[in-house]
């Protein structure tokens, strides 16, 4: 019953917009970030640290907006996905 986060995200339906990232991060800011709290806060593991460097992907984003609050360094820019794209909850 206890599932890895990737497995859990696999249960959720998306229509990923391959041509538009609705969230962008500024790597030069993330490089100097003292906490990388986004890695802990994001419920969809969109933010990970690899060899101390922040890596971001928007494809698994469930659009909760948590990272827009978690990032206090001005790196995360959050926009709504384009029409109908992104997460599509079947239960909600």
């Amino acid at each position: 019953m206890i599932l890895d986060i990737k497995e859990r995200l696999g249960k959720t339906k998306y229509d990923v917009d391959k041509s538009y990232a609705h969230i962008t991060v500024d790597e030069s800011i993330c490089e100097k970030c003292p906490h990388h709290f986004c890695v802990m806060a994001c419920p969809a593991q969109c933010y990970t640290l690899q060899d101390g460097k922040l890596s971001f992907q928007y494809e698994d984003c469930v659009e909760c907006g948590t990272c827009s609050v978690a990032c206090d360094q001005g790196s995360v820019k959050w926009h709504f996905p384009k029409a109908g794209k992104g997460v599509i909850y079947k239960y909600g």
Partner: protein
Amino acid sequence: MPDYDAIVVGAGNAGSAAAITMAQKGLSVLLVDRSDPPGAKNLSGGVLWGNDLARILPKWQSEAPLERFIQDKKIGFLTDKSSIIIDFKTKIFEENKVGYTVLRSKFDPWLAKKAREAGATVIPGITVESLAKKDGKIIGVEESGDIVTASVVILAEGINPRLCIEAGLRGPLQDWEVSVGVKEIIKLSPQKIEDRFNLSSSSGMASEYILGNLEELNVGAFFYTNKDSISLGIVAPMEQLRENGVTHTYDIIEQFKEHPSIAPLIDGGTVAEYGAHMIPEGGLEMVPKLYGDGYMIVGDSAGFGFSNGLVLQGMNYAFLSGILAGETAVEAKGKGDFSSDSLSMYRQKLENSYVLKDLKTFKDIRKVTNNKNMYTTYPKMLESILLEMLWERGQPKKKVRDILGSCAADLKMSKLKTATDFYYIYRRM
């Protein structure tokens, strides 16, 4: 002439309720939502208290896609090895069915359909890019270079209100204003649900817990029965997550599922969906200016919600604020005046309703929900007291007063500190 009397941005509970209210009174209404079907981005814990819905949809109980009516309400504490639960099951809930579990991906499209039936134009799959302004007034919405105008724009964007923030109608959200909610849907057969929770084919159970098993984090959890699934999840305040700094939000929910009193309840079930959503927690202090020339803000976008650690409500506040904004727009249309002055009636209506009354009554509630003792020390204290009272270990028995004293000492709490803390919580809850 504007294209519409009103444009509503967001077909959640607040937005659709506003659209229905206005359309029923003959206003021309455009309701847009960025998902298709409408509401497919929406997620909630899942208990809907529908008193206010009856004002606009008297037959909601028989028509809406509801899961189970709440007959059994539990609140309690979990520690590492124990669960201490108050189980409140009453005929009163059965005789007055107003609380139901819902799945928003079913409920929200139904509510948007009701807006369409009332005469609103409902367009799902439209992401409004910005608010159109003229001479400091909001005059409509903009998408792909096109501007659609209205006498009033009702902003029902939810808890992540990008348009409001970008237009300067409210500031960016701060840590203290939100919690992170993480939720899973666990599929379980109706038979298993009814046997396991002692329910009928239509009754349901809703539990809310304080998780006393997580050191240094004030996290609440919920567990609700649907027809053939369980909605469960955790609610973690952003402030605490940041202070803690080492816990992944997606791990906390699994810790909840693994708890010895929770795991057997979902045994044999399969995870059908995973999701997350922020929850307004800032109370009265986070409420922005709710209206201005040509606009009103409703629901989560306005910070309307209630949480005291054991009770978590938001959908009822969404319905009522949407209805009151809708009524204000109807009156404004009658006067032919959509200025800030005219729309200030919305604030007045909220002041007279439980929406702002609750936020005012519980303006200090964050001091309780931020109290670490509530989530660590007191659940443990309660556990120790119950162990002393309800367990036999061949030891001499103690009076409750002495049990309390020794538990407080074990947990490094003075009697005075405990007593003042209890009084403090009691005054604010």
